[in-house]
């Protein structure tokens, strides 16, 4: 899976299957502070993700 964390401006490659919530927990990210995007679409964090998915994690908190 390819995970792009916008705030870090970084891609992470990892083997992962499970919910968006579990993915966020893996990166120690509070779901309240981000939105999840898959294939250009907003998804909720209970969505089940596959190893072949590319997910973007966008920060909700504005920068200054």
């Amino acid at each position, binding site marked *: 899976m390819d995970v792009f964390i*916008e*705030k870090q*401006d970084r891609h992470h490659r990892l083997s992962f299957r499970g919910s968006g919530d579990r993915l966020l927990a893996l990166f120690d990210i*509070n*779901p*309240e*502070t981000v*939105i999840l*995007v898959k294939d250009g*679409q*907003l*998804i*909720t*964090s*209970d*969505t089940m993700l596959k190893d072949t998915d590319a997910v973007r994690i*966008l*920060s*909700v*908190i*504005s*920068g*200054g």
Partner: protein
Amino acid sequence: MRCRKCGERTVFSSPALCKDHFISAFEKKVYDTIDRYKLISRGQRIAVACSGGKDSTVLLHLLQKRGYDVTAMAIDEGIAGYRDKTLAFLRRFCFERGIPLQVHRYQDAFGASLDHMMQRSPRKPCTVCGVFRRYLLNRHARDFDLLALGHNLDDEAQSILMNLLLNNRAVLSRLGPKAGIVEAEGFTPRIKPLYLCREKEVMAYSFIQNLLTDFTECPNIVDSFRAEVRDFLNDHEASHPGFKELLVHEYLSSLPRLQRQAKDSGDLEPVGSCSLCREPSAAAVCRACSLKKEIRVSSPERQGA
């Protein structure tokens, strides 16, 4: 998770709504806030304080969509690599939608950019930035009936908790969707139509409506008290969902009492004006003028003077 209204795939979880129902619920929440708190009367001219960030862009979009008379007002502090990017986005946005845009620059008003000022001042950038930004917004908003701010529910929950922790009753009495209960001369009333929208909702809406610029962060951002309170609230929200909304709603129900107390204790004395720039100020010299003197930048241009 399925939309609680139609059973389609959800884009938002609290409440669980599909894309179309989320959009209509979000817009309804903003317009209901405007109507319920009587924020805007027909025909009023509104300056929207815009940074190019998601909150003010969503606000501008929604106010224009409902047919209000809006002008975008941006402050260019002169923060290289940050504000130039967000303002480029805002310029394009306003151009494409035919929204008038005013950009007021520190360089023109104070003779130096924030970056430049920081080379000669030991002060924290955010202190200087905030004082000068409020000064310029206040002065230029005077040509309008209202100044609309993109403050969302998270911003307000942070302000409420910060001022509770500091026991700052005077400030507490002045928060709310229609800010500033002093009808002081020289102050354009400030309104916050996104008052009841969580930051995450604003972000989701701006993503769906394609109102987002690339993520950029001010290089001066530091670990402030606000950031500490924000992180606390978000952590708490994760374990106690609904807490931020509860805090803001409890605050709103106490607001009439806080306002009465502030009035009785004289915290709301009418403000005078600065002896140097004649802008409204409680002190003889306003904070902008004293900071300006301290940093030794040239005098703010006077409107019509």
